[in-house]
């Protein structure tokens, strides 16, 4: 549904997108994860025809974003990371405005607006001024706005940012509902564990490139040779932390009261070696295990790995 090949975008000296390749299958919910400045917003702006790429191609539903921007606009619903609403317009007028902007006939608009407001749980705000809605309500209204022309693809740039946990849960529900409506959703987020639950696929971006992608289970499982270890010892935790930090293949060491958590890159033999070293160092090891990771940790592991490869 979305096919990005060798996409390049430069802003002066910064290369925001460095030959990005990405494919989002039809009907899937694709999560784009990456640290600040990875190029997520840039990629989404290009897909939304708001920015011209410097190279490469991007197809949405078979339409090239550069050659056929109008066709692409008809297919996508775009929600930017930051957006405003108009002063002095009521909720239904706001939606009606965008319905008109997509040339939806006046007759069909009224039931449509009702449905959409129902979907995003804003029916009771029908007659309120949009600039007076709360942040979470505006976010949901924006989602309704994205859906107004029944687009096949939704491009949501950090839709969960600035929302409280309840609003996030509601947002997740709406996104799951979109899947039932057979929409393809491209969604970026900083709140990584959140994406794990809603997404079928994730892509991890860094420095304008996709460094890992695939189904959520795959990404969170092995993380390409990296694993998350939990080590617990009876005493001398501080010393142990210093010790493991001095070892090869260990990174992202985190310490708490009972032990350490770290990312380890290596095969099982090397892992056994590490355990032996620790035991020989005189620590009483009570736990040495691989913990199941959530998406956030997978993300740390994979982006950390990218650093290792570069050096």
């Amino acid at each position: 549904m979305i096919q990005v090949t060798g996409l390049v975008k430069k802003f002066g000296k910064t290369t925001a997108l460095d030959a990005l390749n990405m494919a989002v299958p039809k009907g899937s919910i694709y999560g784009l994860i990456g640290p600040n400045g990875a190029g997520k917003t840039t990629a989404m702006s290009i897909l939304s025809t708001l920015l011209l790429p410097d190279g490469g191609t991007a197809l949405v539903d078979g339409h090239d974003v550069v050659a056929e921007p109008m066709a692409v606009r008809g297919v996508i619903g775009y929600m930017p990371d930051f957006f405003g609403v108009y002063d002095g317009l009521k909720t239904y007028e706001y939606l009606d405005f965008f319905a008109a902007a997509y040339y939806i006939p006046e007759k069909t608009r009224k039931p449509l607006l009702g449905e959409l407001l129902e979907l995003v749980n804003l029916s009771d705000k029908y007659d309120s001024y949009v600039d007076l809605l709360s942040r979470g309500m505006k976010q949901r209204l924006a989602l309704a706005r994205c859906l107004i022309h029944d687009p096949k693809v939704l491009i949501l740039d950090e839709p969960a940012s600035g929302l409280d946990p309840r609003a996030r849960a509601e947002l997740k529900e709406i996104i799951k509902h979109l899947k039932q409506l057979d929409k393809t959703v491209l969604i970026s987020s900083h709140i990584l564990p959140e994406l794990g639950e809603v997404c079928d696929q994730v892509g991890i971006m860094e420095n304008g490139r996709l460094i890992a992608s695939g189904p959520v289970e795959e990404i969170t499982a092995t993380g390409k040779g990296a694993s998350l270890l939990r080590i617990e010892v009876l005493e001398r935790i501080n010393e142990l932390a210093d010790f493991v930090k001095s070892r090869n293949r260990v990174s992202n060491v985190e310490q708490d009261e009972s032990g350490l958590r770290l990312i380890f890159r290596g095969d099982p033999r090397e892992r056994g070696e590490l355990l032996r070293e620790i035991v020989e160092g005189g620590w009483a090891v009570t736990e040495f295990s691989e913990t199941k990771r959530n998406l956030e940790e997978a993300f740390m592991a994979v982006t950390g790995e990218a650093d290792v490869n570069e050096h």
Partner: protein
Amino acid sequence: MSINPVLLKELRQRFRNIKSPLLIALYLLVIGALVLGFIYLLWRHMPGYYRPDSSRGIFILLSMAQLGLIGFVTPGLTSGAISGERERQTLNVLLTTKLSTGGIVVSKMLSSISFIVLLVVATLPLYNIVFLYGGIAPSQVLGVFGFYMVTIYLFAALGVACSTYFKRTGVSTVTTYGLVFALGVGTVLLSGFIIEVTRGPFPTPPPLIALLLMDINPVMVMLQVLGESSVGMERDIWLPYWSIYLIFYLTVGTLLLFWSGRKLNPSRARGTKFRV
């Protein structure tokens, strides 16, 4: 053919905004105070007199004051048209809809113009004072209003173009006022300067460029419309005096609108330095 949604939205916002009636009231107050003050001065000197030429004075004062206010109000109302949306972060969403950028620009322009026209029309009752005394033909009033429309068109297009080009409304507003000032005052100064510089020992007709600069100056043309043409310079005219003004203002205004529509279109904005 239905009304452009942007135009409808703009009008809705504009007329719902409490500032709009306040602006109309203020506008009328300024013009009304000026005219009534002038009449009061006349009457203090010669109470109870009927003088056609004093009503002419009122007419000129009223029309000039109106021109000044148009030059003041139009940049203010138009120079935030696009940059305002950009600043409120509503522009990029608008640009992902199926609306054409040309349509957006023209709708923004129309909504601003219609409000300015409303301001001008609201002053019509004041012109009754002029008719009350006689001495002014309705056709002259019509001419003045036609002149206003042409002037508003270019001023508004300047504002919209600046707000498309500049990211910030502040910069756009200052630039628009600067350009309007250049048209209203700069042209005369430049024209005078050119005439002085090219003046030879013998009386020669002023260079064409100096005349053209005068011809696009709203104050000069206004004086001619009002019949105070003695201000204008004698020359062999092959076109009516207002034609250069009309052609220049309509052409430049339309070109500016076209340019704005293109500039706003992200699919053409190769090399744009800012994100919308």
